[in-house]
């Protein structure tokens, strides 16, 4: 590293022996890196929306159930003493909010029609802090206090049942013993979340009513937890499991948001795969752009490498010099590209990209029709690292060739 300054000086000046060639290569590289930076920011923005919408619409960051409930949805697998569980987990750091729910599948009926429904018995005030459901009320109100037979219904389900505000709704579901129980509610609000799974299925009712109707006593099915941030979810889940085991209860399941829905998990996996694809393309772009330029440069300077060898420059030093030259070229193009791609990402991150014409398709995936690219430091660093890795690979061949030249032969080259 003692001669790093001279490598950098020689590398920098050699690049500007042919300014047009260097500028063209750097520009092509810059456009490629800019496009990939923007694509990566779009991906991060989408993923952030999917995560936030999925977790904040209904699911929460983490849910605790009786073991096996998520798979069976059977009310016999319930948490009998939620107060004890909440007392045990409330000492865990990183929890922003806790709510309890009863969740059951059932059948909703009106005078003229019926349809499958997802029933949520919730604590109205706590739920407002936990999820966005109350914010999605498009007509009427959120569950009013002291109205034990109030229901808030997804607008898609209401359409299918042909009901509106103030209409009567009968909901049936299986109780723990296997019998069917029904309850009558009055529609007080309609919600529109944009997520078809929610709008076409959900029926939200007060928790005490659901517990009584379904014969659960004080039992619940879900303890829903909101973390301070997505980054803390894994750590928090581990801490929650530890706190539950300390309670002496081995019969709980602690599920992260992406454990609850396989589609969310697949989207997270796809985002990871997409990131690797972007990085692979970065490496290929850098290789394609830079290798050709560096090989041309190397062949033009065979005598110069011979001269350096004659003067006593070690083969390893010549190797390092050519690699550094490649790195400088990639840093010029990469910096320009990252500035351009980053700038576009920030601007569109602020103003959004309107993809409303694809809103229905997006709603399946908890995506908003206005996409806000998200420029994240770790994504930027990964692209930079991939570009430098590509530069190293692109530099290896010309560097190897230059370092293997025999000075006596190289000096005879014309």
């Amino acid at each position: 590293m003692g001669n790093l300054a001279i490598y950098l000086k020689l590398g920098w000046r050699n690049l500007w022996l042919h300014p047009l060639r260097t500028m063209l290569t750097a520009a092509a590289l810059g456009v490629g890196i800019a496009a990939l930076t923007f694509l990566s920011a779009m991906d991060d923005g989408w993923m952030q929306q999917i995560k936030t919408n999925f977790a904040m619409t209904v699911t929460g960051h983490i849910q605790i159930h009786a073991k096996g409930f998520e798979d069976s949805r059977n009310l016999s697998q319930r948490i009998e003493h939620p107060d004890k569980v909440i007392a045990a987990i409330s000492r865990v750091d990183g929890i922003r909010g806790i709510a309890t729910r009863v969740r059951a599948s059932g059948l909703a009926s009106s005078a003229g029609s019926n349809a499958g429904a997802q029933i949520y018995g919730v604590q109205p005030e706590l739920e407002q802090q936990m999820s966005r459901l109350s914010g999605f009320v498009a007509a009427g109100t959120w569950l009013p206090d002291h109205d034990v037979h109030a229901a808030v219904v997804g607008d898609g389900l209401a359409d299918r049942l042909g009901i509106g505000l103030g209409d009567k709704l009968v909901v049936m579901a299986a109780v723990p013993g296997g019998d069917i129980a029904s309850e009558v509610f009055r529609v007080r609000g309609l919600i529109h979340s944009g997520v078809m799974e929610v709008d076409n299925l959900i029926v939200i009712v007060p928790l005490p009513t659901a517990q009584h109707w379904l014969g659960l006593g004080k039992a619940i099915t879900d303890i829903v937890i909101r973390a301070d941030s997505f980054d803390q979810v894994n750590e928090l889940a581990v801490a929650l499991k530890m706190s539950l085991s300390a309670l002496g209860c081995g019969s709980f399941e602690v599920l992260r948001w992406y454990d609850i829905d396989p589609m969310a998990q697949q989207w997270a996996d796809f985002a990871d795969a997409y990131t690797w694809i972007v990085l692979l393309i970065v490496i290929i772009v850098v290789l394609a752009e830079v290798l050709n330029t560096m090989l041309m440069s190397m062949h033009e300077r065979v005598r110069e490498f011979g001269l350096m060898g004659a003067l006593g420059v070690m083969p390893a030093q010549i190797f390092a010099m050519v690699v550094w030259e490649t790195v400088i070229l990639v840093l010029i193009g990469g910096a320009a590209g990252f500035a351009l791609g980053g700038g576009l990402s920030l601007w569109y991150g602020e103003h959004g990209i309107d993809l409303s014409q694809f809103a229905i398709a997006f709603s399946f995936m908890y995506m908003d029709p206005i996409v806000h690219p998200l420029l994240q430091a770790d994504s930027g660093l990964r692209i930079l690292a991939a570009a430098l890795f590509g530069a190293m690979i692109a530099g290896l061949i010309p560097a190897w060739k230059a370092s293997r030249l025999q000075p006596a032969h190289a000096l005879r080259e014309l």
Partner: protein
Amino acid sequence: MRDELISARGVKRFYDSGELKVAALDGVDLSIERGAYVVLAGRSGSGKTTLLNMLGGLDRPDAGSLSIAGQDMLAMTVAERAGFRLHHLGFVFQAYNLIRVLNARENVAYVLQLQGMDKKQRFELADQWLAKVGLSGFEKRRPDQMSGGQQQRVAVARALAAGPDLVLADEPTANLDSHTGESLMALMRQLNDEKSTTFVIASHDPAVIASARTLITMQDGKVESVKNL
């Protein structure tokens, strides 16, 4: 007492030419003392440049023995030969002597930097040597801003600034006009007088041959004659 700098015994070097092996050097015996000013003369293809490459560690003999400053050149690895060149040898080539992207001062200081000298010291030394070869005021000029003669002078300054035991020059006047060539040879002889640095110069230029103190004539890869003048 005799102070031998170069000792070559039975040095041979063959090159493949199709199915034939051509002897570029065919058993060269040579002894050169420290402080000598030697010109290797001979026609093109006589083996001058090949011998110079052997002496400079730029190429390896196929047979024989060769030692310079007491170092066995055949026993050295590629990296060891590079290190030996850096600390013991200086070169002046026919053309393309300088690194294009460095100015005159930086070209001279380049080898000094590789030797580990600090920036202030190496730039001062570079400027002193540029002054000695008559290039004061040319320190910041790049090779493409200097004439061929000026570039050769920078190469001489670079070769000598590093304090070598031996300076090897291959056809140093070939691309220069006669006046510039004579001026360059006068400079090299003067430096040989002042510094007692050993010079071995390969050339078929009559002016260079006329400047020799020891003239070694080569023919067909062999030393034909050695004359002390």
